[in-house]
């Protein structure tokens, strides 16, 4: 490499990590973990309900505290790290966005399904107008070919997003899929627009996919301590940092501290191991939204059907992020037949 590459690592432990915790991370745990990540020089930390601001619901699960309580507890405790929040239009509203910015959030990530960017026009516009770092987050990006992803990305860019994410919500992409999408985005978007990648580890591709993304021009990469995230988790932060260090890619974080956070804080927090069990593998194999994992397990137990069959059926129905309600519905229908 002639010039040293660098990436901005974006921590997902406190947001995507809410999924395997059924949104039950306490204020104390959040603050402790955020302070430790800050101390390890992680530059950007996401804090929100797993399904974004306003996600507290029967459909997705209620956290013990409101979004603003978490944000107001964490943000003042950080020395250098900045805090982002996720918002999925249709679940959260512009009111949540304003609240988060009021709490001190400096990066707003507005997420839509990879074909529905235009529902985010209002929110991306507002975020840009409020002067915060504004990210368009295209979920389930494996479901469209690269040229269609570009069309949606350009819409988000035109609404005011200064960074566009290719989001592998199902953890189903292989490195070549990532390369094709990130290269297409890099080639089509303004040079000023940053590109990011968010991976899930359902096929054990989190690290490999993130490297492919960097090679193709992505400069923001999402990762999570000990992988704590939906499905088999996100790209494991400490593993990814070790790999980046060996490759000589600049990341600015402290590897040993990140190893210790994973081992001493995050793993002991886990209610169950975040790993590629057969259901998580099915998510990646069949291209199903990672947050469905625990819902499918619970419905399977309640109605005496197979969680694998539920997830395969969710894939067959081409469900998208947020359709958790269909899981109980599918299980009921399967139990009846």
């Amino acid at each position, binding site marked *: 490499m002639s010039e040293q590459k660098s990436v901005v690592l974006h921590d997902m432990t406190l947001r995507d990590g809410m999924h395997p915790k059924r949104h039950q991370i306490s204020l104390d745990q959040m603050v402790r973990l955020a302070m430790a990540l800050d101390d390890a020089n992680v530059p950007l930390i996401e804090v929100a309900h797993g399904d974004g601001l306003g996600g507290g619901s029967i459909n997705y699960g209620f956290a013990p505290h409101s979004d603003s309580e978490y944000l107001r507890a964490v943000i003042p405790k950080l020395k250098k790290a900045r805090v982002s929040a996720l918002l999925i239009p*249709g679940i959260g509203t512009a009111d949540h966005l304003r609240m988060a910015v009021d709490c001190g959030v400096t990066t707003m990530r507005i997420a839509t399904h990879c074909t529905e960017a235009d529902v985010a026009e209002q929110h991306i516009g507002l975020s840009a107008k409020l002067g915060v770092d504004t990210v368009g987050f295209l979920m389930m990006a494996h479901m469209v070919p690269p040229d269609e992803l570009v069309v949606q990305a350009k819409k988000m860019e035109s609404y005011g997003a200064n960074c566009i994410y290719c989001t592998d919500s199902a953890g189903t992409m292989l490195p070549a899929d990532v390369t094709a999408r990130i290269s297409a985005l890099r080639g089509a978007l303004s040079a000023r627009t940053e590109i990011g990648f968010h991976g899930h580890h359902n096929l054990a591709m989190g690290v490999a996919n993130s490297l492919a993304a960097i090679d193709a021009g992505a400069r923001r990469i999402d990762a999570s301590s000990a992988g704590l995230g939906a499905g088999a988790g996100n790209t494991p932060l400490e593993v990814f940092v070790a790999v980046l260090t060996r490759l000589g890619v600049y990341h600015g974080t402290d590897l040993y501290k990140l190893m210790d956070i994973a081992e001493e804080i995050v793993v002991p927090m886990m209610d169950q191991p975040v790993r590629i069990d057969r259901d998580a593998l099915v998510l990646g194999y069949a291209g199903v939204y990672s947050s469905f994992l625990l819902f499918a397990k619970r419905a399977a137990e309640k109605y005496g059907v197979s969680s694998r069959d539920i997830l395969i059926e969710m894939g067959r129905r081409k469900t998208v992020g947020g359709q958790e309600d*269909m899981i109980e519905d599918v299980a009921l229908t399967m139990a009846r037949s």
Partner: protein
Amino acid sequence: MKTNVAIIGSGNIGTDLVMKTLRSKTLRPAWLVGVDPQSDGLAKAAKLGLKTTALGVEGLIPHLRADGIRIAFDATSAHAHAHNARLLQDESVFVIDLTPAAIGPFCIPPVNLSADLLTDRLNVNMVTCGGQATIPIVAAVSRIQSVKYAEIVATVASKSVGPGTRQNIDEFTRTTAQAIESVGGAERGKAIIIINPAEPPLIMRDTIHCVVEHAPDKAAIAESIAQMVREVQKYVPGYRIVNGPVFDNHRVTLFVEVQGLGDYLPEYAGNLDIMTAAALRTAEMMVERQLLPKEGRRLVSASQSQEAVQR
């Protein structure tokens, strides 16, 4: 003799309304009003024998008296509705609002369509598609026992969601949540909308969760829901229970599907049908119960409706 009505807005909803109103026993669609002379809806309506204008509501006003228009459906946008409502109310035309403007009271026909609701003002609001599909169920539970919290998830086919809804999706979640409380009778309401681009497009699906205050009277709730579903089926035949009611502690959950009649958009767009069918039913009740105001009588003056808009 049928009562003449005008339909304002020549998009998906307006054009679907034209086709449904053509089958009405009491109403006749006389006018379709648009703003785009090239619109598919206007061309279609003209072929079906309606008078059309591409000049917006201003193009309709001079013809109201001569054509005996007493009721207008507004399927434009919240912003345009404020303007349209002002002009039409000055002419004593009753306006059924299918936009999220919500100047008038919310109307969910099987729950609160009554003479009082209709004569209170010259304007009612049809909430949202998700509201029409779910609030009857919330009301069916809350008339049996008190509902502390109700949450609905509406999943609709991408192809059935027009640009108006997309540009202001927050209006969907806010308006629906408000009506879950004020019409559905829940103490607190929440609405979620999911847009799914699957091909072939999926039929509108709705999940309704109600959390009741005391242990649920399962038999009474199930019977009340079954009754309500029959009421909705009177005007949306493709409205049906897929699963439930499921009782889980104090939670009551119902999974429904809304298949449309396939008038303008195909059958998957039940979200469109349930709005237009509910609006049509409201207009028919005005006529059947002879609730239309005398011509020239101003129930709400222009200045009053202006205040309502600003509020």
